């Protein structure tokens, strides 16, 4: 009986304990089921989104930049397709081995290899593509394509290059594109992270305007990034890619630049140093903005060897230096019409007032001598003759009688010491000297002689070619002007200079005297007369870099090229209803009339004789 009792007791105990365990698991099961329920029902939407985010990657698609046109609709800058060998580091286990395999049938530059290896790890981590070789030839393309089955981690992609059709003549106006720096990246992507995945359209990947119009009108040209939705697996392999929004191609930029005049300018300059700026008098738009020597923007934008770049950068010719906007030149005699306007406005002279020019001006205060360029002087000289033959003595005398502060005000109203252009890149506004400036800068008081020097555009007075062009434009248009600009059809307000005494008749006479600079038999630029078949008004200038006290000294300085005088000219035509104003500076060109003049006429010819 005890055994049966024992068995019964054991069975009851077993049952209780089994029930205990099953109930424990039952409770645990309910907890599990609740967890599954909360995952699949309560938090369904959250996990659904998470699953979609997992497999979908947003890809930014780079837009093409807008095309840049000249004022006649000629394409100056566009985008040309090219083929690149693009790699996917994410799927490359051994980069050296990969390069070895590729190199067995494709020639890859050591520089490209180095660049590839240095960026490899980062690109691999971020699953970004890496371009191994740019602009590959059709032959290389075919060579790769027959072997493409061996390279799942590389492909030939169609990309674009920013193409400058006239790479040298618009270097200083249109500028070039380049890789964005971090600030620019920030600006382009706003809040997007630097790890944003991008489908590049350009061989050079991200590009942004670095100088010139490419920089100034970056917002117009850039366009908008599109978006693709890419389905990937956990390894990052693309399974499918759908377009969610197409990239918006950048807007085209229509400029006021004139292709032919630039070609003429380049030809006329023939690699001499200097600049030419020409303005359409109708609306103040810049038609020519050329600085010489120049460089290839295609090289800058699409890859230049560091060595070549350094050569350009360190070259004594300074090809990167934008002489048209930043070159500081004494205006020299080309300032004389401005001084004349001042004299008439202030009642210091009129067209009848004359002096006897014996070849020099003596400063009454200390007897210091200021020489004319012509030994023996011009004799009896009125204003008309003083402009046509460029008498220094006449303007020394006029300047001597001027108030420097009033003169500064007048020169400022003609655009000196201020930015001339509203959409030019890094224009130097320079300054008009005055007593307080000299005190600050040189710790010296203003001498009367300083004003006298300014009367012939020497001394402390400097200007840029674009300022000279604007000044010529204001004279040509009789005091009315628009701010200068490079973009076509820019809405601007017309401005004008207010005069009390300087009358319409004075404008007429001033123009006439400047016409005589070329057309008159004694004009300083009379040799230009035969080079054109319309009438041009002009004023030449020769900027002395070293002031020699005597002729012997002067001859010595002429032997050194870089110390030779700069040749200048401002001109406008055709007269009597001028359409274009132009300024030319030829560094170390010596003679405004015979060196700078022909350049100005070439440019005017190309503009006027169409």
């Amino acid at each position, binding site marked *: 009986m005890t055994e049966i009792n*024992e*068995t019964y*007791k*054991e*069975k009851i*105990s*077993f*049952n209780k*304990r*089994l029930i205990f*365990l*099953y109930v424990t*698991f039952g409770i*645990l*099961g309910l*907890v*599990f*089921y609740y*967890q*599954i*329920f909360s*995952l*699949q*029902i309560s*938090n*369904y939407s*959250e*996990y*659904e989104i*998470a*699953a*979609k985010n*997992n*497999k979908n990657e947003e890809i930014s698609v780079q837009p093409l930049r807008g095309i840049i046109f000249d004022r006649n609709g000629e394409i100056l800058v566009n985008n040309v397709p090219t083929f690149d060998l693009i790699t996917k580091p994410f799927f490359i286990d051994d980069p050296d081995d990969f390069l070895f395999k590729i190199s067995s049938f494709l020639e890859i530059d050591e520089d490209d290899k180095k660049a590839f290896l240095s960026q490899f790890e980062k690109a691999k981590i971020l699953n970004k593509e890496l371009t191994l070789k740019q602009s590959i030839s059709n032959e290389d393309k075919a060579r790769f394509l027959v072997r493409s089955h061996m390279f799942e981690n590389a492909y030939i992609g169609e990309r674009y290059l920013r193409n400058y059709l006239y790479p040298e003549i618009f270097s200083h106006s249109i500028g070039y594109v380049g890789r964005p720096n971090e600030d620019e990246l920030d600006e382009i992507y706003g809040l997007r992270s630097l790890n944003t995945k991008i489908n590049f359209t350009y061989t050079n990947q991200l590009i942004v305007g670095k100088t010139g119009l490419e920089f100034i009108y970056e917002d117009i040209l850039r366009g908008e990034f599109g978006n693709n939705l890419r*389905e*990937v*697996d*956990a*390894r990052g392999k693309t*399974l499918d890619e759908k377009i969610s929004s197409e990239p918006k191609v950048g807007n085209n930029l229509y400029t006021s630049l004139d292709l032919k005049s630039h070609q003429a300018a380049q030809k006329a300059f023939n690699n001499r140093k200097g600049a030419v700026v020409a303005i359409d008098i109708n609306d103040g738009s810049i038609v020519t903005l050329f600085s010489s020597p120049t460089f290839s923007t295609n090289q800058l934008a699409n890859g230049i060897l560091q060595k070549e770049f350094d050569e350009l950068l360190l070259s004594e010719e300074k090809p990167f230096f934008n002489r048209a906007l930043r070159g500081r030149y004494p205006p020299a005699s080309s300032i004389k019409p401005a001084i004349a306007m001042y004299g008439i406005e202030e009642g210091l002279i009129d067209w009848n007032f004359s002096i006897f020019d014996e070849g020099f001006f003596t400063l009454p205060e200390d007897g210091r001598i200021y020489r004319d360029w012509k030994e023996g002087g011009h004799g009896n000289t009125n204003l008309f003759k003083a402009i046509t033959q460029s008498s220094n003595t006449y303007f020394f005398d006029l300047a001597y009688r001027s108030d420097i502060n009033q003169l500064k005000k007048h020169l400022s109203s003609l655009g000196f010491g201020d930015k001339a252009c509203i959409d030019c890149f890094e224009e130097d506004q320079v300054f008009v000297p005055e007593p307080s400036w000299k005190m600050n800068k040189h710790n010296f008081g203003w001498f009367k002689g300083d004003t006298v020097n300014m009367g012939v555009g020497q001394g402390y007075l400097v200007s840029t070619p674009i300022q000279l062009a604007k000044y010529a434009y204001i004279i040509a248009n009789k005091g009315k002007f628009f701010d200068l600009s490079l973009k076509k059809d820019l809405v601007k307000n017309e401005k004008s200079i207010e005069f009390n005494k300087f009358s319409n008749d004075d404008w007429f006479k001033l123009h006439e005297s400047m016409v005589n600079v070329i057309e008159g038999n004694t004009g300083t630029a009379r040799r230009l007369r035969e080079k054109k078949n319309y009438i041009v008004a002009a004023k030449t200038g020769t900027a002395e870099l070293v002031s020699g006290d005597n002729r012997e000294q002067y001859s010595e300085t002429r032997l050194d090229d870089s110390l030779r005088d700069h040749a200048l000219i401002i001109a406008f035509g055709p007269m009597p209803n001028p359409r274009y104003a132009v300024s030319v500076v030829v560094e170390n060109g010596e003679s405004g009339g015979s060196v700078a003049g022909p350049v100005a006429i070439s440019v005017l010819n190309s503009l006027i004789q169409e």
Partner: protein
Amino acid sequence: MRYLDFKKFSIYYDPYLIISITLLSIIGLFFLYSASDGNTSVLIKQSIFVFFGLILMIILSQPDPQIYYSYSGFFLLISVILVFVAIFFGPEVNGANRWISFGFITLQPSELCKIFLPIFIASYLYGVKLPINLRNTFLTISLILIVFLIVSSQPDLGTAIVILLSGLYVLFLAGLSWTFIGSALAIFVISLPFLWNNFLEPFQRQRIATLFNPDLDPFGSAWNITQSKIAIGSGGIFGKGFGEGTQSHLNFLPETETDFIFAVIAEEFGLVGLTILIGLYFFIFIRCFYLSINARDRFCRLVIGGLSLVFISTLFINIGMVIGLLPVVGMPLPLISQGGSSLISFYIAFGIIISMASHKKLVPR
């Protein structure tokens, strides 16, 4: 009806278990086909295991439980020897020596321990009087710990834990005294910090830590759990459909054919599919519960109870891990996950259960 009588030859079987297990196995093949990305060779291999496993289950149902009682020590000894063979002669895979290779298949002998250890303990405790005295308790626990340590040295913590549990279940069901359970629990809790620092590998500690704070390691072990939760959650009520799970087919889920197959099922068949699956498991538990309550003697009771709890534990550890409630440990979803060893071991277990359920003790006249 416990057996079919073909004149002199009888077949012992339990219709409920056989039908539900067969059904579960076939559904499992279906799930596995999707989880393996439509890999037919995986499917064919698994089908062969299922087919022969079911036959093995029927065969093992035929002997009288007395056979298992008499040879339980022998079976356990063979199993442990095979574990040693795996440790010393087996191929090393991912730093572990768990397998014995037979050319075309590799088997994991530790899976057998979780069957034969509880059976041996049941046979040992068969005649022991209640309450179980300290000597027997210590002997049993020592045996359990020895087998546990051998298997965990492979290393294979998942299987070792199930083996530990399988032994303890039988000991508990056989009537382990409550005072002993109480004091053992107290000692375990007190020594937890010691075990944490000295017994667990760093990666195991990490797995437990991330369970409570997934942000600790978003790309390491927590990554798997996060992806698994996303898979389950995004399945919703009806799931994404057969073969449509993005988490599993785009490789976000790890180990889709084995440990994480539950997440694949959840993603593709949703709450409805899971409920049906869990319902089938639940049916098997209830049947096993019924069979153990009505078993013919103490040995059979303990074996059916113990083995069914091994089955339940495996299921709970797997699901608990996949849904993010338990730390990550290698554990298959019973009867469904790819892998012959686990599959075969459960067919053996159910074969023995059916044998014990269908053989009635001959009542002495």
